[in-house]
């Protein structure tokens, strides 16, 4: 069992936990958190994919992908939070 595989499996587990929580939680905030956990799992998998053995340099492509993915995840989360705030404001009014 290689290190990379462990990382990948951990990523997969995180992903599944995230999915479960996203689908089952009622309120938005936990769901958003779960989604981010999900994303972390996926990124973990990507990062573990970059490993090509000790002798070779790591594959740069997955890293690039993860970076892009992170940007997307952050902006999406921000949007969701903004929306949530707006909803609360409306509820208060």
């Amino acid at each position: 069992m290689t290190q990379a595989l462990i990382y990948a499996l951990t990523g997969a587990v995180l992903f599944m936990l995230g999915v479960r929580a996203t689908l089952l939680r009622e309120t938005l905030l936990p769901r958003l958190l779960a989604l981010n956990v999900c994303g972390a799992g996926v990124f973990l998998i990507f990062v573990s994919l970059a490993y090509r053995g000790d002798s070779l340099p790591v594959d740069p492509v997955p890293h690039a992908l993860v970076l892009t993915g992170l940007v997307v995840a952050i902006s999406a989360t921000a949007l969701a939070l903004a929306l949530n705030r707006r909803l609360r404001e409306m509820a208060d009014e």
Partner: protein
Amino acid sequence: MNNPLIWPVAVPLLSALLALLWPRRSTWIGLLGSALSLAAVVLVSRQVIESGAIELALGGWSPGLGIALRADGLSVLMLLMSTLVSMAVAVYASVYFSRSERRSEFWVLWLLLITALHALFLSGDLFNLYVTLELLGLSAVVLACLGGSRESLQAALNYLVLGLLASMAFLIGVALIYAGYGTLDMAALAAAIESGPTAWVALSLMTGGLLIKSALFPLHFWLPPAHSNAPAPVSAVLSALVVKAAVYLILRLWLALFDEVVTQTAALVLGLLGGVAVLWGSWVALQAERLKLMAAYSTVAQVGYLFLFLPLLAALPEGTTRDVALGALVLLALTHGFAKSAFFLAAGVIMQRAGHDRIAELGGTARALPVTAFTLALAGVALIGLPPSGSFLAKWQLLSSVFITGQWIWLPVIAVGTLLAGAYTFRLLGYAFAPGEGVGPSLSVGREEIPAVLLALAATLLLGFWASVVWELVPISAYAGGGG
């Protein structure tokens, strides 16, 4: 620049930036941007028709490293639909949002949405697909909350969360593919992918994500609230184009990339879900009390039809009959795109005039808004699948495939679905043509009514009589693996 492939993406993107910088002129920028991207798409289409699939490696990096854009028959058709529909909707929106303070926000997001769509249809790389999918989802969500009501915000939020989840699933599929084959370039993958655990796990994850986005029963629950609460132009694009983007991706994956992996059983499962979607969506649409809700459920049903094709395509041998069926699928998607956007725009006109869209109170629409009523009727014709609409031809070919493959179970589904579609359409028309005062006094034809009727005419006449273009284009494929 003799390769026009960049323009359909670049033009709306640049316009979006421009609109952001110059909000007071955003309407004109939006319209101009839509028109120019239409021109760009036409340019691309001409080249594809003349010389087959074309490819562009952005920044000079070869595919595999850089970002590849590819256009083949399927992408060109989708591009054409999206750009034509968005052009018409833009004209409508210019009236709809003319006095709204959110005008400039709308146009920026709108142009971003078009950018995302075009990039998605042209992308030749799995990861780029993910990015465009996210971009599309995010801009769509923001557009959907422009209505500002509580319901629309709630629905948009749900839409966002589910969309993110779907993208995650898609992304993990991408990761698996990269792990298995070391490349994300679709042309390379089309040749490389073989049946195996990696492939099928990846495919099922990606498909699962896309099924959410394409709102296939039973994952459709987010769609009706989101689509029915958005502002009319947004609903039109959401139902007509955004959903189609996900379906397009499924087609690409199933037919071009994973054609070796796809099994008959898997296709049958999706087909069955599609069948249930047809029946359920139509049934709920028949019960709907609000016009836009009805339209949204009708979208659920129509997406179901598209999935009915999958088991048939899987069973058909590669060759002409399969290409015919695939063309029918695309034609159905296109017709639905035009018809549904027309339908939503007409609903928007009615809502603005009457202040509500309760079906039972629409009496007098035909007298007060004859053109809009006519639009609803034409769009309804296309939704039912009556001639001369494109969906009639598509349904004909669908039935034909059913008979060829001997998969008789789809026959009652199609039959009942058609009858139900007829029922909900004519229920609506019955109210619309009944006498009444629900809509207010008669006025002359407004500018906002024209785009809708043109879209509806495109769905019924253009796609009916010039549908053979679809079948000419569909076999032009950029991917060696299959007919897509």
